[in-house]
């Protein structure tokens, strides 16, 4: 009965579950509801992904109003792929959160935590599903507001200033996007993405549209923490509760990257962005600087969460790099990395959260000797860390492989080499932590404490992600075909233009 309504369900299920959580009142009921709803959304989005692989794009007219008059839900493979990752991670994080936030968040706020989490999920699903430029802004703001709340739930008071900075930057970003969308509307009279794409083609080189693009890109860059607009991210991820860091790091910024892809490839078209505006050079340069600067920053931090946060910014650099290579393979590598990075960062932050739970600290000193005390957690950390580095047989290798391949196809040897050099920095910052865990004696932070392995509810989601990391590093057929289909769809116009020339 609901088969044709599936595209809209991942949005409205969490949206309706959020107020229900408040009405339920009890935090464990809220947890149960949130987890179930999230899992249901995950199942639905996987189904949708498989459907898009078979049938192509799914379109759903909200309210029965045909686009461009009404709002359209439009899910193609790229959206469905990231949607599956987001809902999947959300489910795992929720399972994980029960034990994690029990220590880090005040009990009176647990229900609010789950509500905010569901709202955030609603926003992210909405961004990924919608086919309307303004609707995207609305969902962006739902997720952002929920995110500010989630970040501010941290136990350290610095989470407040982090959340505030995030709020200010995020709002500036959103307002920039709003300005850009306004300019688009001004010139075209429509907000539907497909309709926009059709109409923009007439205006190649129009100054208003150029400015609109510039504002959208800057706005999205703030949201996705592209260097040098990333300053809000490290403190936010460092001081947020671990479950929140795990969720945000693996989903929120990735969804912003998706938004960028959407605007560049679907709405404006690669021709406009890269040819008329030459954005590829700028993005490329920023991506490279991001990779190096932030990887380097990650190597000198003592707080492991900050290390991972900087690493996230660097990894975003890889995704942008893939986009800026202006090729189907590059885009595919970027999309693939969005998906894979979600798996690894999720697992890493979960492991760090487990360490925080048991040792009470996330300083690198707290990790010393944990290889023996928390073997399962640290093993998970190790594997996910290897994935970040891009060691073969992990998911991270696959995306880096395609990234370098894409660069080489464009004869960009230097860039290919820089990507690989970036991995070296990853080795250093992950290696430092592993060295502490396996080759050092417990420091004064943990010495004499009886440190147990993390509880089951935390280990299971963590290991699910770790296994996913290995699985998608070895059996790449699903991710590759999805990313490839998605990239082909998105760059369709580009190849047509090339063919025409």
């Amino acid at each position, binding site marked *: 009965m609901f088969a044709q309504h599936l595209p809209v369900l991942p949005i409205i299920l969490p949206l309706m579950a959020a107020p229900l959580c408040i009405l339920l009142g009890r935090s464990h009921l809220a947890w149960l509801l949130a987890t179930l709803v999230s899992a249901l959304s995950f199942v639905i989005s996987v189904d949708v992904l498989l459907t898009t692989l078979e049938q192509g794009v799914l379109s759903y007219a909200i309210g029965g109003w045909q686009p461009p008059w009404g709002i359209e839900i439009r899910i193609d493979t790229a959206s469905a792929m990231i949607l599956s990752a987001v809902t999947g991670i959300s489910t795992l994080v929720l399972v994980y959160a029960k034990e994690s936030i029990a220590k880090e968040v005040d009990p009176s706020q647990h229900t609010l935590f789950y509500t905010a989490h569901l709202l955030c999920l609603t926003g992210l699903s909405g961004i990924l599903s919608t086919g309307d430029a303004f609707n995207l802004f609305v969902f962006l703001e739902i997720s952002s507001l929920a995110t500010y709340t989630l970040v501010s739930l941290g136990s350290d008071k610095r989470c407040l200033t982090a959340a505030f900075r995030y709020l200010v930057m995020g709002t500036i970003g959103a307002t920039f996007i709003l300005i850009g969308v306004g300019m688009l509307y001004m010139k075209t009279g429509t907000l539907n993405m497909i309709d926009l794409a059709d109409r923009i083609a007439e205006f190649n080189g129009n100054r208003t549209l150029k400015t609109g693009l510039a504002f959208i890109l800057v706005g999205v860059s703030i949201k996705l923490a592209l260097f040098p607009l990333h300053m809000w991210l490290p403190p936010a991820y460092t001081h947020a509760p671990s479950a929140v860091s795990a969720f945000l790091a693996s989903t929120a910024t990735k969804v912003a990257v998706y938004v960028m892809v959407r605007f560049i490839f679907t709405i404006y078209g690669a021709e406009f962005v890269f040819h008329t505006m030459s954005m590829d050079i700028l993005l490329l340069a920023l991506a490279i600087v991001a990779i190096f600067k932030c990887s380097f920053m990650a190597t000198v931090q003592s707080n492991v969460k900050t290390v991972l946060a900087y690493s996230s910014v660097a990894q975003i650099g890889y995704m942008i790099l893939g986009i800026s290579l202006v090729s189907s393979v590059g885009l595919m590598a970027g999309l693939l990395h969005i998906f894979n990075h979600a798996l690894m960062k999720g697992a890493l932050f979960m492991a760090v959260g487990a360490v925080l739970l048991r040792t009470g600290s996330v300083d690198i000193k707290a990790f010393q000797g944990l290889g023996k005390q928390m073997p399962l957690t640290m093993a998970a950390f190790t594997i996910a860390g290897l994935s970040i580095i*891009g*060691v*073969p*047989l992990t998911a991270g290798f*696959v995306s880096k*492989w395609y990234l*370098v*391949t894409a660069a*080489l*196809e464009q004869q960009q*040897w230097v860039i*290919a*080499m820089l990507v*690989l*050099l970036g*991995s*070296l920095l990853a*080795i250093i910052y992950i*290696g430092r932590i592993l*060295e502490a865990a396996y*080759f050092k004696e417990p420091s004064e932070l943990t010495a004499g404490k009886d440190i147990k392995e993390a509880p089951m509810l935390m280990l299971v989601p963590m290991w699910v992600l770790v296994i996913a990391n290995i699985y998608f590093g*070895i*059996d*790449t*057929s699903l991710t*590759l075909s999805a990313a490839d289909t998605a990239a082909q769809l998105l760059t369709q116009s580009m190849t047509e233009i090339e063919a025409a020339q």
Partner: protein
Amino acid sequence: MNIWSTLDPAQLINLTIVVPLIGAAFIALFSQQPNLREGVSIITAVVLFTLVLAVTDNTFSKLSMETTWVALFPGLEIAYSVEPLGVLFALVASFLWIITTIYSIGYMRGHNEENQTRFFFCFALSISTVMAICFSANLLTLFIFYELLTLSTYPLVTHAGTKEAKHGGRVYLGVLLSTSIVLFLLAILGTWVSAGTLNFTPGGVFTQAHSDSLVALLLVLFCYGIGKAALMPFHRWLPAAMVAPTPASSLLHAVAVVKAGVFSILKVVIYIFGIDNLSDIATTDVMLYIGTATVLLSSCVAMTKDSLKARLAYSTVSQLSYIVVGALLASSVAAAGASLHIATHAVGKITLFFCAGAIMVAAHKKNISEMVGLGRKMPITMIAFAIAALSIIGLPPMAGTWSKWYLMVGAVEADKMIIVVVLTISSLLNVAYLLPIPIKAFFNTPSGDQPAWSWSETKEAPLPSLIAIVVTTTACLWLFFYPQPLIDLINLIPDVSTELKGRP
């Protein structure tokens, strides 16, 4: 001699990789019972060797052996296929693993090392990856196991857990990982993007259609990317890794790591570039001269080292470059010499390391200057040392003679007289830094300012170690007199031959 003949030949490859892994699992399982643990180690090593013998047998009977594990990317799999060069390396590695295991038992017990389980465990793991490297069917598989080898030997290097060991480990890991990721992987990807395949193909994968500069660049990337070959200036990891316990060093230098490096270079040269095409590549000569320079320079450095292990390490750097030079000479004879050198240098160098370890265990000496007069107390060890040193130098009747001979012939064939000269000088340098050690040990007496050491406490090394030393020394001699099976094997390698070809 093929006790596995009932088995599907393709399964043999899987077994060679899996058997050490199973062994490793059992080693971990029996961590509390040292005897059982070491028993398992030896049994695994022996089983593995029989497996490799079976593979050799099949190779001689021209049976093709291939297997595919998974397809990582479309058109790109983790796959194995047996070819003669890999078999040669596998033979050497699996044989020496047995010996090293026996030696380790004596060494580790005699030295009362900690974490012995971890040691044997990692040992088994690294042999497993070496086997995978030997039989890899494409560059991707080779790369993956190349990296795994680095990682699985890292705990061996830092085994001691001291600050120095950690520093050494960091250099080891840093150099090997960075070269392999930044250069080797880049080269692999470059090959993939331009040639469209990574499979090892006799005669090479590049065609005339590929731009010369690209191929030239790739060659440089490969040579430096395979950091385990210790081409200068990326040789620093080798001396740094000397902090490892001696059995580990011997494994690193003689068996697994460095040999994996030069093996990879040989394999890339033969199966990716093709020996015949090599001379057309612009950068071949450049790399060749870098190789010869490494030979000379590291020999010179070796002379300045007083620490025995450090001297041996630089000697290894020098000897590895022989193989690189042989590979790059673009001559089938030189390539054969290089291949043979893998085996001969392996037995020679492992003997030297065993001796060094034995001296450590028995006399607690590290520095050459302290070994004056040691020969009288440890005659077997020092005699073995002398024989192995001669083999390295390349004097008959030792195994090293043959490989050096072919190298020289190859250089002549390639019309590179300067290489011949350099090789000769280098052999002289070898004499200069290796021979003084046994001479001092046997013929010098301690001078006055040497601290007197109580000779009565010093005796020969523990029995297992001694057995190992004797076996490898015998091998050094044996290979001089009966090198034919190996040479036959080498002649099976496409484009490689010990016969001189007619000048074109």
